[in-house]
């Protein structure tokens, strides 16, 4: 697995939120909030990322309550829509505090969301045979006919 080159836990938090489009100005508040919530010095990056993921996933579930996507994809959908709708410009750290997006943003993200493909509606095609007539069968057929005649 890829090793995260960790300077500190704060680096990971900053990277996480800058990937969501948050600006340098917004990052300190978000970092502080996550630090407080996490409440300990992270031993490895994965643990911290999983913790932030859980926070963001809560938001994702509130925006897409009827989604049937697995968590990994739901998180990806949330990230994508958040980026497409410039969510970071409309949010502060309050978002994570209250686990709620600002009014209108959730709706905007829902509207912007799309299906990569419609739900499956499985049905099988009927297998076809391409059979060449066998010479043996042809002669048998001929013989049979001749006998009948």
């Amino acid at each position, binding site marked *: *697995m*890829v*090793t*995260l*080159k*960790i*300077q500190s836990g704060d*680096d*990971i938090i*900053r*990277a*996480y939120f*800058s*990937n*969501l*489009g948050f600006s340098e100005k917004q990052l300190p508040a978000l970092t502080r909030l996550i630090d407080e919530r996490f409440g300990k010095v992270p031993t490895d*990056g*994965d643990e911290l*990322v999983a913790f932030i993921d859980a926070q963001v996933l809560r938001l994702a579930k509130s925006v897409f309550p009827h989604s049937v*996507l*697995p968590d*990994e*994809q739901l998180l*990806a*959908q949330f*990230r*994508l829509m958040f*980026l*497409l709708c410039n969510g970071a410009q409309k949010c502060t750290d309050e978002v994570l505090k209250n686990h709620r997006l600002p009014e209108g943003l959730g709706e905007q993200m829902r509207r912007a969301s*799309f*299906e*990569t*493909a*419609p739900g*499956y*509606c*499985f*049905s*099988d*095609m*009927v*297998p*076809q*045979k*391409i*059979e*060449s*007539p066998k010479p043996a069968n042809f002669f048998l057929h001929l013989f049979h006919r001749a006998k009948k005649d």
Partner: protein
Amino acid sequence: MQKFVPISPKQVRRRRVVVFGLMILSTLVATLKWMTVIPSDSSIFTQLLMVILFMLTFAWIALFFWSSILGFFELWRKRNVPGIHWVDDDTKLSTRTAILMPVYNESPTNVFANLLAMAEDLKKTGQEKAFDIFVLSDTTNPKVWVEEEKIWLEARQLMSPNINLYYRRRAKNIARKSGNIEDFCNKWGAKYDFMIVLDADSLLSGKTMLTMAQLMEDNPETGIIQAPPMCINRNSLFARIQQFAGKVYGPIVSAGLAYWQVGDSNYWGHNAIIRVKAFMECCKLPVLSGRAPFGGHILSHDFVEAALIRRGGWSAWLLPELKGSFEECPPTMIDFAIRDRRWCQGNMQHIKVLISKGLHPVSRVHFTIGIMSYLSSPIWLCFLLVGLMTALGREIFPPTYFPQSYTLFPEWPIFDKIGTIALFILSMFMLIFPKFLGLIIYLKENKANEIGGICGAIKSVLAEIIFSALSAPIMMMFQSKFVFDIFAGIDAGWNTQNREDSGTPFKQAFERHFWHTLLGIATTIIVWNYAHALFWWMLPITVGLMLSIPISMFSSRESNGIAARKHKFFIIPEEVNIPEILKEAKAYLAILQKISLDNCGVEAIVTEPRLNALHILMLPINGPAPEFSAKTLEMAQIKLENFINHMLKMELTKEEEIALLYSPQILRKACLALAI
């Protein structure tokens, strides 16, 4: 609205009797004449061989000729294809149609620009909600895969909200394009009544797509409707000649085919609408027994699908009335030959299908025509070789004038020179005359200005005839080699077609045409020295072969195509009155080309958070990951770590890149790590 023209089965039979009767009759007459022309001193075996080869070659020309003549009269009288009910343009659709764009390592910008233009055009009909677009990717190049995702996202945002633009990629390309469509049918077919199948370079106007769907609704027994595609958009001289030929002669050829095929037409694999129910009932293709090139998955699936749909009791139509159907032709002679290699193998494979049980006789004719379009080359080659050998034989073994002793009169070998010239002129006439008929239709409808004016059109037709004459022997050699390769068991594989105007460099031309040139020179020397009487007869063939390298290179140049256009050569109507859809496609192409596709592949996925999220979101629809070894993934991770931590170039192999692209957790982490 077009008028409904009724036709009874008896009338359909009569049409076929006319075309094939004329073909057989003219072939018989010409063959009888040929039998009197063959040098009398040839052995009986040689004579028999020459008669058979002549008959096959001439029958091929005769079918094309008579079909074109009847097509000409259909166009002259402006008669519609009979037996199909036409509907009002504003008839509301109550069905759903999926527009399918199967792609395989194609340029995503071009593909999506065309799709956006088609969607825009559909919007103008006001019935765009009845259509969904699917990009069905079989792309194996990881970089192109990521490009497709990136451009798809942009295209989605440019697309009318009333039309869904879906994308899915198959991890395993089972059965190539036919497998791709089958996969669609299995997963989503039940949601749609019809599907319009496209090729990566297809472009269909909104009105045409709507009409196709309306026709399908109103003709419930119809399985397939094929809109004949016209070549456009290319600038190389070779492609411009093909475009012009397609535009001027294509209509009479299509009308001729439609005349005798009626509801038993063929399907050309794209720019056609298919009833999903009929397709699902009849078109799950079997894997042919034996090994490639004859066995295995069916390559030219389109002909077989049309035949199976017909076998299932559905009708198939070729409707020349449907305009606004476009495609692009290969830009160079070599690209044309590369495509031909694939098609040739597909058509040769049909030898196995041709005699299979239960097919409609007309479907068997389609297969025969397809097979003959390639077999005719080696037949022609054999014909020439036999003729040459006979002439050389006479030089080496002079005729015996007194074969029996005690005779007063010598036995002169009879060679009917005038008869030979007459047959040659007849063959040339049958090949060339239909081209002028195509031109006459333009003149009759006062549309000569659309193809460069009367002067421009006439000189273009003459230039096209000269080019065809020069390139025919080269194509004969190419196709003969393809046929021999296929019979020797060499498989064509599956390569992406070059669709860009890029001139053929000397090295490539030399590699491909060296043997043609050598053969041309050798034949000329031999004929000059040992069979001088044949020299002038062989010249049209030997000149083409000797000049194959310069012809191939010269015709591949875009600059020569543009210069020809400047001098009013090979102008097509779509260049004079540019259709809206072409303008739209061009405009969208300009927009999409602004999107940077540098460093696509894993690098883009880990450096662009938006693309990272999109890729991970789309992974499940792309099916389960293909198998790759743990070592491949391990190696890929090491390269990725070196990229992240030391900014070293990744230089991933294709397998490593694919392995990473199917590892969402690694991609996600790498994207975070790069932001630190």
